[in-house]
């Protein structure tokens, strides 16, 4: 008889996110890029058909990737493989779970499938990561069962300004909660549109009950160091690596800068001679802002 075990618990779902702390999760579109990412020291890869910069350029509806493409990447690497479903598209999430994807990203980078509801993430054995632009959004996602929050930034721009805004907003509001009076927390819950019990928990702990990573606009080792110093616990890099001149070199450099984020000499060392960074876009010039998707 085999010894009893429980799978899909909050502890093991959050646990994998905790194992990814201090690391870099890289967007990849094929097995060759996945191997480059793993060789560079990525802690996980995000398998998708187009990186956000190309989704922006091409327009149209962006959907879950072809399962064959995800399986090809799963076969190519030993690190965890994540994949994206559309906001509220629980059937895509079910498919990703059946593929044995290690983390599901219910992502604003894809075109939303539901304009009022997100996926009920508690009903899955696979853990979910969700984006947030502010504390209320983060807490709503956690109340739906997300086990990892990433600040959204503005994906596919190579511009760090929105990531910084979102991180500062989330972490700034957490700080305010820790000094609020007990009776003020109910008004905070109303303002944040978040469950009062979660607001009270944050006020007591001084941090989210799940890890907080940063995404959307990281293009250089210095960007990684910046958001880690601001309080992100790991980084997602999408277009920033494979839209640059020398992806393998840049990927390694961002990995080292994320580990040694508080040591400017090491960040300087790895920043030398990286070739061209992705061109990037200013936020004012964007036709579509992805960060506004999510309710």
């Amino acid at each position, binding site marked *: 008889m085999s010894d009893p075990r*429980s799978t899909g618990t909050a502890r093991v779902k959050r646990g994998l996110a905790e194992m990814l702390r201090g690391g870099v999760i890289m967007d990849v579109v094929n097995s060759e890029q996945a191997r480059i990412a793993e060789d560079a020291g990525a802690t996980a890869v995000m398998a998708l058909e187009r990186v956000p910069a190309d989704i922006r350029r091409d327009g149209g509806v962006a959907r879950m990737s072809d399962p064959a493409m995800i399986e090809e990447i799963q076969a190519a690497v030993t690190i965890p493989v994540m994949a994206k479903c559309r906001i509220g598209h629980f059937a895509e999430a079910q498919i990703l779970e059946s593929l*044995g994807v290690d983390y599901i990203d219910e992502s604003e980078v894809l075109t939303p499938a539901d304009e009022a509801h997100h996926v009920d993430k508690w009903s899955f054995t696979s853990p979910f990561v969700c984006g947030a632009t502010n504390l209320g959004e983060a807490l709503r996602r956690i109340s739906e069962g997300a086990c990892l929050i990433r600040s959204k930034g503005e994906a596919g721009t190579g511009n760090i300004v929105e990531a910084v805004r979102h991180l500062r907003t989330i972490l700034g509001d957490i700080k305010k909660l820790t000094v609020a009076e007990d009776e003020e927390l109910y008004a905070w819950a109303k303002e944040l549109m978040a469950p009062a019990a979660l607001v009270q928990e944050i006020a007591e702990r001084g941090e989210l009950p799940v890890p907080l990573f940063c995404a959307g606009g990281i293009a250089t080792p210095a960007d990684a160091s910046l958001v880690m110093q601001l309080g992100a616990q790991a980084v997602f890099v999408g277009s920033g690596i494979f839209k640059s001149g020398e992806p393998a070199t840049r990927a390694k450099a961002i990995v080292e800068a994320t580990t040694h984020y508080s040591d400017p000499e090491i960040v300087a060392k790895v920043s030398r001679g990286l070739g061209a960074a992705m061109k990037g876009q200013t936020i004012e010039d964007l036709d579509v802002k992805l960060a506004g998707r999510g309710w």
Partner: protein
Amino acid sequence: MKAGVLALQGSFREHREVLDALGVEVIEVRTPQALSGLDVLFLPGGESTTITKLLRTSGLVEPLQRALDEGLPVFGTCAGLIVLADDLRDQHGANAPAVFGVLGCTVLRNGYGTQLDSFEAALRIDGIEGTFPGVFIRAPLIESTGPGVEVLAAHDGAPVLVRQGRVWAATFHPELSGDLRLHQRFLQEVAA
């Protein structure tokens, strides 16, 4: 007592919190300089391929190997066990070179499967009363142990906590369990 926690990537913060709760002085190790004067070292969970690469780029492989060969007590959890073991395989059947090779174990990386197979289980551990909460995240599977390796706990017939002299290793994460007793027991035994 001064405890180092390898802090390149992974669950170093959780090890730190356990050691803080036990009142042990903690040094986060990211550079060779941080290794001097340590009494014990913890190697956290995380992604073993990432940690292995960062050990190299941070210049830590040689000084750490020397410290381990000279008998620095070490406790590796999950990825920490992988870098200590002397025989590694991955789920695609490939052999990987050992990193420190100071623990006589054949280890299959992600041997229990993907994240869907990550699990919790109550463990019986030699010398610890009652049960201990075992948290297994994409855990490595110890397929066999060499001479001189004691099995302190097993689950489903496979060793999950082993000891070879002053080298301790677990395939699960005591640092995520909220239970201080295993860290405490390691510190007591290696200090004795």
